[in-house]
């Protein structure tokens, strides 16, 4: 039985400043195994710019360019343009940002980069709130979730709308390849990142990235809760290419309640709220399955 199911080389150094159990650090570790050394990452000020450590140290073993919050897509375009003019055509340009940094403040520059057919891979690590600044609601915070800006209170002001449908938006914008990945399924993740790397043009990967402090889960459960998200159909794993959707893992086997109740940010949910989420998850899963025209699930 093969012991190592994902590549052994590491491009993330020990000693980084991720919180204990941080999903995003695992995500970066897995992605870079697939991307390899000929990769350049540009990333805005977010959790990830802190996780990489403090000057003069850096945690990644590939070049990284930090930049302002809104312009991940634009910086990727600039890097690609310079690489092209300098004849460096074997480099993968990766824009790496969080959920808020992508679907909220960074959407304009991401849309522009896609519209320009920039040849880059954009990876959104989705921990479902602005975690670096202390858990504030973002466009990717799930329906009814607690955050420090959707604190409930007397007026029951939890997140009142579901996650922005970023994948649908970017498919319409014109990505050459899209995929969802999760830290709980590293083999699936590595395969998809390798595939994305081989495709020219704008690619987008939506990665679920658990966050112990933000989701109010014990650090030890970080991977387990991420797995539950897929098993409950909340975060299905699929691919999009040339108009076709492919379901990667048809493992929707658990009720959303099990996923929701594993996290403190959902502990206030009423049965009605849970039922509402279950209905929405089932509907959306059915829509996805339909788009996939037959599951074609790969192992």
């Amino acid at each position: 039985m093969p012991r190592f199911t994902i590549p052994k080389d590491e491009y993330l150094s020990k000693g980084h400043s991720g919180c204990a159990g941080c999903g995003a650090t695992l995500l970066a570790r897995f992605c870079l195994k697939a991307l390899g050394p000929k990769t350049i990452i540009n990333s805005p000020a977010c959790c990830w710019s802190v996780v990489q450590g403090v000057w003069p140290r850096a945690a990644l073993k590939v070049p990284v360019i930090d930049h302002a919050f809104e312009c991940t897509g634009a910086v990727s375009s600039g890097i690609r343009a310079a690489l092209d003019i300098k004849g460096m055509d074997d480099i993968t340009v990766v824009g790496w940002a969080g959920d808020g940094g992508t679907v909220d403040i960074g959407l304009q520059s991401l849309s522009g980069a896609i519209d320009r057919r920039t040849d880059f891979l954009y990876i959104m690590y989705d921990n479902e709130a602005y975690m670096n600044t202390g858990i504030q609601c973002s466009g990717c915070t799930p329906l009814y979730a607690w955050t420090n800006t959707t604190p409930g209170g007397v007026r029951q002001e939890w997140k009142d709308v579901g996650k922005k449908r970023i994948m649908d938006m970017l498919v319409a914008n014109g990505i050459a390849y899209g995929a969802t990945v999760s830290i709980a399924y590293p083999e699936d993740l590595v395969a998809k990142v390798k595939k994305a790397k081989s495709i020219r043009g704008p690619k987008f990967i939506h990665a679920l990235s658990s966050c112990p402090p933000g989701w109010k889960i014990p650090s030890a459960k970080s991977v387990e809760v991420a797995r539950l998200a897929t098993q409950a159909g909340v975060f299905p794993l699929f691919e999009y290419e040339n108009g076709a959707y492919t379901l990667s893992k048809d493992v929707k086997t658990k009720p959303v309640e099990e996923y929701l109740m594993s996290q403190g940010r959902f502990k206030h949910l009423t049965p009605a709220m849970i039922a509402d989420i279950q209905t929405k998850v089932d509907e959306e899963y059915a829509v996805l399955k339909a788009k996939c025209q037959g599951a074609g699930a790969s192992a």
Partner: protein
Amino acid sequence: METYRDLPQSTYSLQTTESVRTGTWRTFRPVIDTKKCTRCYTCWKFCPDLSVDVKEEGDFPKVDLDHCKGCGICANECPTGAITMLREDTIC
């Protein structure tokens, strides 16, 4: 690095974070029971801090206590329950 004269021209990094002993963050430490361990390396795979070292395939995983933050993912994910989290022995 003593004065501004020693600084690089702009804020680019000069070394990796390997020298940072994040092991000081933990309150619990993973202990691997080699009798139960089947060397499937799930612990190596799911460690966010790259603190489970496996030199050669076939070796037993070994915890790097300089960097392990004690998050407990390895213990939680280990299929045979070979890893238990023990409270750090406090000095005082």
